[in-house]
């Protein structure tokens, strides 16, 4: 019979110490990593609030940019312009995105085609926004020979579609099949089931997805550079260049004047608050809309 293993040799003790200290070291490193990640976020947010709040005033929301060299002025036209472009994008992007999601969840379950669509949507999600910008430039702006709010809206709409499609599909997948079957069993047509039963049940989650997509494109600058282009004056015409908040921030941040930098900080704060509000709303919706049961 072999003698029992002696766990109390020097080697064993050393080994155990090594393992324990590695464990502690890794734990410390991962905590350090988390702090290192959180730190820039807090730095960005803190600096933004500090700089932005001190530059915000009433004129920021009511006036349009002053000519170079003059102090004051605001970004009223950019805020409204962003609203116009985003509304346009939502109008085009949301219905298409939701419809594609409905197809994937209600009609395409298990089909190869649906898998391909799903995969393409995921890949499209990762295409750089500037590529969307030059594609829309090549398609619309080159044809029309001028920049336009419409082109900007199309560029953002294209970016919204894949995100909305995927979240819609995921949310519809959580709707229990029994509910659909109940509706179909009553003789409700399939299209009506999809709209009034499946979509209705999943609507909190789908709204979440739409708002996430909205928040994502709200801060996009690159696709607007060559489509909406920006505008120093009031313009609400869809056929003309229009101002947008991210574009104006970019112009002001890269400009040489202190007054411009001040406005850039204020604009960033407004943009972030807009996005933060929608993300928070998303959280509320998502928590309230958590489906019980599942499929």
């Amino acid at each position, binding site marked *: 019979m072999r003698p029992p293993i002696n766990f109390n040799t020097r080697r064993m003790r050393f080994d155990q110490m090594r393992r324990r200290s590695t464990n502690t070291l890794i734990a410390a490193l991962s905590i350090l990593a988390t702090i290192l990640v959180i730190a820039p976020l807090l730095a960005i947010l803190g600096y933004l609030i500090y700089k932005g709040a001190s530059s915000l005033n009433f004129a920021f929301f009511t006036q349009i940019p002053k000519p170079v060299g003059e102090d004051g002025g605001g970004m009223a036209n950019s805020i409204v312009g962003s609203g116009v472009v985003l509304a346009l994008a939502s109008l085009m992007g949301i219905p298409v995105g939701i419809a594609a999601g409905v197809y994937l969840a209600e009609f395409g379950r298990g089909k190869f085609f649906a898998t391909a669509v799903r995969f393409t949507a*995921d890949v499209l999600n*990762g*295409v750089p926004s500037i590529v969307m910008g030059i594609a829309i430039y090549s398609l619309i702006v080159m044809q029309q020979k001028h920049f336009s709010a419409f082109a900007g809206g199309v560029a953002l709409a294209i970016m919204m579609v894949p995100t909305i499609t995927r979240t819609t599909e995921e949310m519809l997948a959580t709707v229990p099949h029994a509910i659909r079957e109940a509706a*179909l*069993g*009553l003789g409700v047509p*399939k299209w*009506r089931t999809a709209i009034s039963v499946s979509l209705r049940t999943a609507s909190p989650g789908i709204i979440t997805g739409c708002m996430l997509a909205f928040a994502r494109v709200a801060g996009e600058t690159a696709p607007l550079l060559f489509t909406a282009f920006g505008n120093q004056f009031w313009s609400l015409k869809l056929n003309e260049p229009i101002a947008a908040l*991210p574009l104006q921030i970019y112009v002001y941040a890269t400009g040489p004047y202190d007054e411009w930098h001040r406005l850039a900080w204020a604009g960033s704060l407004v943009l972030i608050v807009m996005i933060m509000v929608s993300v928070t709303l998303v*959280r509320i919706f998502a928590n309230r809309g958590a489906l019980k049961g599942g499929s």
Partner: protein
Amino acid sequence: MTTDPDSKRPTPDPVTGPRPVPPATPGALAPAEVVVSENAPPSAIRVFLASRGSGKLADQSFAVIMLLCACSIFAIVIFIAAILTMRSKLSLAQFGLKFFMRSAWDPVNGDFGALSFIYGTLATSFLALLIAVPLALGVAVFLTELCPRALRAPISFLTEFLAAIPSVVYGLWAVFVLVPLMRDTLGPFLYKVLGWTGFFEGPNFGVGLLTASIILAIMILPIISSLTRDIMTAVPNAQREAVLALGATRWEMIRVGVLRNSRIGIVGAVMLGLGRALGETMAVTMVIGNHPDISKSLFAPGYTLASVIANEFSEATGDLYLSALIEIGLALFLVTIVVNTIARLLVWAVTRNAPARVA
């Protein structure tokens, strides 16, 4: 689970049960349309539904509309590829594939090559990954394995909030905080400590490849860490328990039980981060210095594929110039498609069988 709902139509037994249909009518079990024509007192809802017709046309047109919208996703990808190829024909014909191997960029004489932009893009992206991946892994390990439950939600909310900050705001912060920091503190320090490697040489203006990489790292961190976290959560708890039961310390459990099982997915997450880094435009354009150079020093200004488009597209004069820029866009599109495809396949391979997470 994936039963076609259509097949349920003729057998609505569970539904008909509670309805006030006379028990003597066996026809109640047949499809609704038939019942209405046969029985004397049809319920109100059946009359209503019967009056709506069979709805076959509506059903089919609805399905077709949904299908068309799904196809639009393919259409978008094909359209982008087609229009970019079409508009860059001039430069494709003039330079061919050599375009990507030449570093000349001379708009005045119409001489274009993308090598210096490719170098800038690769250098900043890989440097950003070098910084971001260990940190993201640390955060993911902390959040899934070590973090007290009460801290988990706020920290993951914060890291995800990083992803919601627009690129231009990162750029603004980088211009006014990171660039001075790099110029006055971090840069001289790096030069003193690592100057002998040759990576930190030459004049340091604060803008350059390194600054761009740092801001890129901050931007891709949340993507990598939240995906890695999802992948690590998908590892079954039995794995962890098994390794712990063998007497492993917590780190050994994480290494053997968690990280080894999720390595493919982590590679996928890193590649998704890479895809984002390759195409990131605004923040990089604002701090990279925008100068087409291939320099070993990370303090030197550079240029990336995306930032040259952002910077020069609207002032491009001449068809060849414009088409060269569009060709750069096409290259960027194709590269990110390839990187993202590989990444998605890897992530899918791992999380496919995991329980779906409600966002």
